[in-house]
Each structure stands twice: as structure tokens, then as C-alpha cells.
């Protein structure tokens, strides 16, 4: 007779230790997961709110927008509009999971299984995270960023720093390298490099050099357009990177701030590409672990029922005409797909053999899943593994809304033989971040001429930029660039749809 992990709802730190040990056995032995070392931290509701407002990170530089987030979350939490998340988990090594003290023992078990093993495994093994994030270095880097921002505030003034960060935040979603090619981010090295850069600047600074007459510059026309663009690395879709490298009048510390914001944006980039998979993985893992623990008799029937209640809430998917509907719930979709893969691997039907010849009937559930978790992101995962059976089960259909179409919104495909592939392709496309974000890139700049920066927005399916916001963002961009900035919206035939030109605000030029 195995001993119960806990009785009732109460827990203490010994209970947490027992729970973690029990989960670990299931996770590592039965499921074959591969995780970073775990660190579990118990926090209060208020601390949870704190963590919320700095994108879940334990340490972050100070900025008013996090205060705004906090005020916003707090207001809705107080009014009871919002419950707090059960957990926050950080992609770092060791992997840190925050548990709320209010949770019952069952909930703590669920959360440990979900975060400390599910998410943890995903972070460590998914190719995007491997490629783009540096779990060992992130906490040190954030610490460095925090201190650096603080030093800048002391040296150059809070207002100046805030202005730069505001601008960087506005461009954050366009501060990402979408395609690998450069080497993986090494944040520790990055931090050291920043220190060396600063030191070097201080050492070699000599005011005399400013007064040395410069030689005759090359004739302007000598540099051809092509060459100029090549020198600047254009076209460039990473706007923050471009500014950091090429904005003519930024002070070194401003470039460093842009760099920090860019690195953080990049760090979170894989998360936005893997919401469905990441939550699906964690949910599948917690479900397996909890069921296993219950079967072993280590969780009582009552506590298991409590778990099922929470679990069902988490994976609830309202239908499109339900007032609670707000798109696909990544937990629901992810979990359903993981379970569906399990079904295909263990007891496939003819249809599944036809659609998934590689995995149908393979019987090694965990082997297949681990492979899937490691090598896909939401878009490719849905494109590859959404089965006809699941589409039927969720009764998916595809709508096409053309504002020109007077008859209304057309139902383009439904869950039938003709529609399966189209529905699947469309849903996959909706989870492609490259497709969700506006496609904006710097195409040209005349560095020896009027220095106007020219950007293009490639309009897809007629979706143009929101005018008010676009102007505001461009204002920030122009302030950093310190010369005019033009954004041209072009459609696929290179026809110009709209053009914005923004001049920088007369800000006292930043002193180097």
C-alpha cells in the first residue's frame, strides 16, 4: 500500500517536497522527460501580481509601463474580473516555477506537474528555445539590464532614459530576428561584451580627436545605391537592430538600451510561436502525472476529482457562438491534439493510417510526442498533426470575410472530406507569427543625403496599419533616428496604398 502524498487541502514544505519527488519519478521514468533542474518558489498573491506586470520575470528594469500593467491587473483582480494564474514558470536553468500560497495541495501537485515538468521539458527540448534562448544566462542578463538601466538613469537622467525605452518598447515587436542564421544568443557573453565596450569607450575617449579635420569625403555619387543598401544590411526587418547599428546620432548608452530591449524581445519570441504546443505539452504532462499518481493510490479519489474540476476548466473550449468565446484556447487545442496523437499512435483507424503513415500504430506514445515537442512550432505542428477526427470533434469551419462581399461572410470550408486540408492549412496560418505581425522593413536610407529613412509595409490581404498607432510608433522611430522617417504601405503589386512621413520632435540632441 503506497502512502498518500497528502490528505485534504493543506500542504507544508515537506508535502511539496514529497509531491515534487513523486512527480519527478513519473516524469523521468514513465514519460522519459528531460528537464532543467527545478526550483520551486512559493509566493503570495501580491507577488504574483508583481510578477505579472513584469512579463513574469523575477527581475526587470524599472519602467512606468510595468506600473501601468500592475495598476491595471490589480484593478481587475480586486473587482474580481480576473483570477490569478495558478503558476508562472520561467525558461531558465534552473527552471523557476512560482506557486501561489493560496493553492490547495491538489493544485500545487497539478502546478508542479504542469510547470516544473511539462513546461520545463518543453523549454529544454524544443528547437526554437534551443535556437533562440539562453536558459543559463537569462537571469544574469536581466540583472545586468536592470543595473544598466539604473546606471543610465543616474548618469543621463530618468527622463532621457524613459524616452529611449518608450521608443524601444514601441518597436519591440519589430526587434526580432525571425530567421536563424546568426549564432545562438549567449547572454552571459553579451553582458561581458557590453562591459568591455563601455570600458573601451572610456579608455579611448579623447576630446582632441573631435577637432581633428577630416579628410575629404568620397564623392556622394561614388557610392551606388546598391552598395549603400548592402553596407547597411538592407532590407532589414529588425528595426531595433537597424537603429542600434545605424542611427546616426544615438549615444552609446542608447544603443545599449535598444540592444537590451531587442534581446528581451528575442528571448520571448519562441514563446509566442509555441503557445499551443507549450500549453498542450504541459497540460498533457500534468494529466498523465496526476492520473498516474491517482492510480498508484498516492492521491485520494476526492483530491483527484478536485484536480479533474480544475483540469476541465483549463481545457474548456467555448464554441464560436458562445458569449465566452474568444478564439481558440491554446490549452484546449494543445491538449486535444496531444491526446489525439496518443490515440493515433496506439489505436489508429484507417483514416489515421492514411493521414499519418509515419506515426499511426507506432505504439511508442512518448517517443513520438517527445519528437513532436522538440521539432515543431504551432504553425508546423497544426499543419502536420491536426487530424480529421479532431476537426470533426471540434466541428471546425473556415470563414472568409471580405468587406467587399455584400452577401456576408462566406463559409469557405467545413469539417468534411473537401475541407479538412483547407481548414487545417488556415488554422496553421493563424498561428504563424510571421504572418500575424505586420511585415515592415527598412528598405532604404540616404546616409549622405537628407538621411531620410524609408520603410515599407507589405500589406497582406488589404490589412493596413491603424493610422493613429502607426503615427505614434513612427514618431518614436523618428525621434531615435533624428531625421525624417517615411513609411510606405505597398500591396503585393507594389502599388502604394498610403504614405506616412514623420519628422523627429525637437528634442535636445542626446549628448554622447
Amino acid at each position, binding site marked *: 500500500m503506497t502512502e498518500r502524498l497528502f490528505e485534504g487541502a493543506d500542504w507544508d514544505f515537506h508535502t511539496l517536497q514529497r509531491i515534487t519527488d513523486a512527480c519527478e519519478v513519473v516524469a523521468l521514468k514513465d514519460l522519459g522527460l528531460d528537464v532543467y533542474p527545478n526550483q*520551486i518558489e512559493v509566493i503570495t498573491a*501580491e507577488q504574483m501580481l508583481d510578477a505579472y506586470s513584469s512579463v513574469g520575470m523575477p527581475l526587470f528594469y524599472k519602467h512606468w509601463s510595468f506600473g501601468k500593467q500592475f495598476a491595471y491587473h*490589480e484593478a481587475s483582480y480586486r473587482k474580481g474580473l480576473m483570477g490569478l494564474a495558478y503558476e508562472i514558470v520561467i525558461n531558465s536553468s*534552473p527552471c523557476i516555477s512560482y506557486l501561489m500560497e493560496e493553492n490547495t495541495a491538489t493544485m500545487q501537485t497539478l502546478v508542479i506537474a504542469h510547470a516544473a515538468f511539462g513546461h520545463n521539458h518543453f523549454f529544454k527540448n524544443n528547437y526554437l528555445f534551443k535556437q533562440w534562448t539562453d536558459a543559463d544566462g537569462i537571469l544574469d542578463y536581466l540583472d545586468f539590464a536592470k543595473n544598466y538601466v539604473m546606471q543610465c538613469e543616474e548618469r543621463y537622467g530618468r527622463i532621457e532614459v524613459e524616452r529611449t525605452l518608450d521608443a524601444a518598447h*514601441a518597436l519591440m515587436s519589430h526587434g526580432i530576428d525571425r530567421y536563424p542564421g546568426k549564432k545562438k544568443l549567449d547572454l552571459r557573453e553579451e553582458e561581458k561584451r557590453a562591459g568591455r565596450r563601455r570600458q573601451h569607450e572610456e579608455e579611448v575617449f579623447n576630446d582632441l580627436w573631435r577637432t581633428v579635420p577630416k579628410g575629404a569625403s568620397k564623392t556622394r555619387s561614388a557610392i551606388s545605391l546598391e552598395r549603400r543598401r548592402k553596407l547597411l544590411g538592407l532590407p532589414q526587418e529588425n528595426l531595433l537592430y537597424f537603429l542600434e547599428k545605424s542611427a546616426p546620432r544615438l549615444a552609446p548608452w542608447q544603443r545599449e538600451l535598444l540592444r537590451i530591449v531587442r534581446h528581451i524581445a528575442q528571448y520571448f519570441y519562441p514563446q509566442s510561436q509555441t503557445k499551443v504546443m507549450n500549453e498542450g505539452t504541459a497540460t498533457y504532462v500534468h494529466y498523465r502525472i496526476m492520473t498516474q499518481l491517482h492510480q498508484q493510490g498516492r492521491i485520494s479519489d476526492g483530491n483527484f476529482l478536485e484536480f479533474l474540476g480544475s483540469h476541465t476548466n483549463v481545457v474548456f473550449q467555448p464554441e464560436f457562438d458562445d458569449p465566452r468565446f474568444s478564439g481558440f484556447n491554446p490549452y484546449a487545442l494543445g491538449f486535444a491534439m496531444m491526446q489525439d496523437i496518443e490515440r493515433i499512435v496506439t489505436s489508429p483507424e484507417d483514416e489515421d493510417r492514411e493521414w499519418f503513415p509515419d506515426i499511426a500504430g507506432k505504439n511508442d506514445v512518448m517517443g513520438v510526442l517527445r519528437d513532436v515537442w522538440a521539432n515543431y512550432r504551432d504553425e508546423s505542428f497544426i499543419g502536420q498533426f491536426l487530424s480529421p477526427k479532431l476537426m470533426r470533434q*471540434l466541428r471546425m469551419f473556415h470563414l472568409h470575410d471580405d468587406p467587399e462581399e455584400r452577401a456576408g461572410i462566406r463559409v469557405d470550408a467545413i469539417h468534411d472530406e473537401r475541407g479538412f486540408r483547407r481548414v487545417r492549412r488556415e488554422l496553421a496560418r493563424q498561428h504563424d507569427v510571421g504572418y500575424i505581425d505586420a511585415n515592415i522593413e527598412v528598405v532604404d536610407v540616404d546616409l549622405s543625403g537628407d538621411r531620410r529613412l524609408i520603410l515599407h509595409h507589405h500589406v497582406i490581404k488589404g*490589412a493596413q496599419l491603424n493610422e493613429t498607432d502607426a503615427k505614434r510608433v513612427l514618431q518614436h522611430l523618428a525621434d531615435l533616428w533624428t531625421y525624417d522617417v517615411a513609411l510606405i504601405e505597398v500591396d503585393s503589386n507594389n502599388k502604394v496604398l498610403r504614405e506616412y512621413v514623420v519628422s523627429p520632435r525637437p528634442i535636445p540632441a542626446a549628448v554622447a
Partner: protein
Amino acid sequence: MHIIDRRLNPGGKSLENRQRFLRRAKSLVQGAVKKTSQERDIKDVLEGGEVTIPLDGMHEPRFRREGGTRDMVLPGNKKFIEGDYLQRSGQGSAKDSGPGEGDSEDAFRFVLSRDEFVDLFLDDLELPDLAKRKIAQTESEGIQRAGYTTSGSPANISVGRTVRRAMARRIALKRPSKEEIEELEAAIGACTDEDERLVLLAQLEKLKAKTKRIPFIDPLDIRYRRFETVPKPVAQAVMFCLMDVSGSMSEHMKDLAKRFYMLLYVFLKRRYKHVDIVFIRHTDRAEEVDEQTFFYGPASGGTLVSSALQAMHEIVRERFNPSDWNIYAAQASDGDNSYSDGELTSMLLTDKILPVCQFFAYLEVGESGGSAFDLSDSSLWTLYERLRNSGAPLSMRKVSERSEIFPVFHDLFQRRETVQEKAAP
């Protein structure tokens, strides 16, 4: 595997971010606070609470796309087949992310704590110059203990400290104790052997000589308690609320007065550790009452303002010594006063009340929307205006609408401005 209890870590990591946010949003929040406070009851207003500020300026813009043709995959199809058309406005149009989505966020609501709220509300207010000058003067000198000293007046000798030092000295120098000498004397008395007695006697002589050389208390031992005078700001204030409750005062007028009193109270409360309130209501005679009676108790009779001033004067004399208390007074009235009372009122005010007050405000309240209000000045207003013109430190305002209370209050207490210049409401 580490399990760490972080609950005891200092919370409020966001506090600084929140302060930054408030600092940035200050002018917006201030506007919102004022607007909110005009709509709410004062009591509720000062509880802090939720304010709404326009998002503009607090907005963090991002490139957002909108419009165009949209494709979406949804769950829960019940009856549609390929090629069906859905009505746009009707049920099932699935407008989960319509073009208007971004604009729905055009106001931002959040909760301010009581302190934050009051801070922002009173931020640009300050005690009038007159009061500030007086505060500086009425700092009374306090004395406080400051250790011990070797010189001082006999009254300040610290016996305990002196004796303790004396004892230390006596022990250090080995002064013979009384018991030792007595013991020796007893031994001498009991001694039969002559030689031994001589030895003991010699010993006794030595001890006695030593006792004389080493006094019980030496002037070196004496310690005096030392006192230091420190300036002590008067940290308490009393606020007198004077109100005419004769029949001519309507509920509306009382309400206006109440709002003014409450504001003054909260304002004072921010600057003094302790604020007392005295309510004096008057008809043709005055009485001190509690708050409930003050605002809601029935009373009737004529009007003699001097009676209230007299009552205030007496209360000050009995309970609130002006050197210990900062005295504030606010008088509300509809301006009626018995004609014969004018001289007495003016005498009391200039000779007894104003010299001890930090601030005296007269608030003339009128009926809502009363246009005749401005036509002729009331007898009390005329009287006070005359006093003020001859230099008496009086603040006066006329108020007839609830919404005017805050501006008037603001006006009275505006920072770095002499408020006595203008009288128009």
C-alpha cells in the same frame, strides 16, 4: 530540487514602477481626481478608489493591422456547409476581433490608495502665506534630556548617577567600608592579648585615615542632568466650524458648508499629527454641539453672529492655548446678521479671534442657482469686507453650487498666492 519560500520577500516590487506611472500620469490623474471628486460625496471621495483616465498619453503604441479580408477558423459549427453566407451583424458573425477592437481601450481605470488620492487632490494646495509665517513663529521651545554633565545647577544633580560613580571610585580606591571598621572595633573590644590589640589598633588607625583621605562622595563624582532646548513644532491643530443654523439656512446651504468643512479637515489632517474639531452652531445664541447635531439638529431663532464668535473665544481660552495649538476657523452663513450686532462682531473678530487664528475663512452660501445672490452684498459680507480692507487677515468666498466648493477651496489655498486680493467667487 529546491523549494523556496518567497512569501516573506518584500512585496511591492512594482511599487516603484507604479510610482513612475503615477508621476507620468500625474496631470491626467489629477484632472480625473478632481472630476471624480466633484461627482462624489466628500467622505467617499477621500476614501480614494477608482479613477478613470484617458488612455491618450498613457498609450503604448504598436504597429497594428486592421481591416482587409479576414480568414478565421472557428470551433462549433452546427449547421453551415461550404458556400453558406453568414450575415455580418447577426448571430454567428464571429466578430471576435473587429476593427474597433483597439479603440475599446480608450479609457484606463485603476485604483488609487487613499493617500495617493488625497495627495493628488491636494497636491498644488498650500497653507496660505499668512499661516505659514505664523507656523514658523509659533514653534514653541521644548526641552529634552541630553545625557549628563559635570557642571550645572544643584537642582539638576542626578543622585543616582552621582552615587554610582562615587561607589565605583570607592571600590577602586579600596575605601574601607563601615562594616569593616565596625568589625575591627569589635575585634579590638574582644581582644585580650595586648600586643595583638596594639596591632589591631594600628590597623584601625590606618583604615580611619584612609577613610578620611577617600571621601564618601567627592566633587569629582557629581553629575548633573543635562537638558537641551529643541524647537518643537506645534503638531496639533484645532478647527472651528461656525455655522448659522437659523431658519434662513436651507439644507442645501448646510450641505455646501459641510463640504467645505470636510475639505478643510482633510487638508489640515495632512499637515498636523492631531486635529481637533469644534462645532459651534448659532442662532441668536451659540452652543457647541456634536457633528450630527451640527448638521442635522433642528434649531430656530434669530441670528447673532457675535454669539458664535464669543463662544469660540471662550473655548479657545479654556481649552486651546494658542501657543500649543494652531487654530483654524471656517464660518458659514447665508450672510444675515442682526444690524445691531455688527459692532460687537467686528470687535470680537479683530480683537479676540483673528489674533489667535492661523486662518479664518468666511464662506457665504447661497441657494442653488440663486441669481439675486450677487446683486447686493449681505450685511455680514459688507462688514467683513470692510474689516478685510482695513487689513484684517480674512478669507471670504461666496458659493452657491456644490461644484463650486472644490474650485473655491483650491482658490483659497493656492500655493504661493496671496488669496486676499480677490473676493469674487
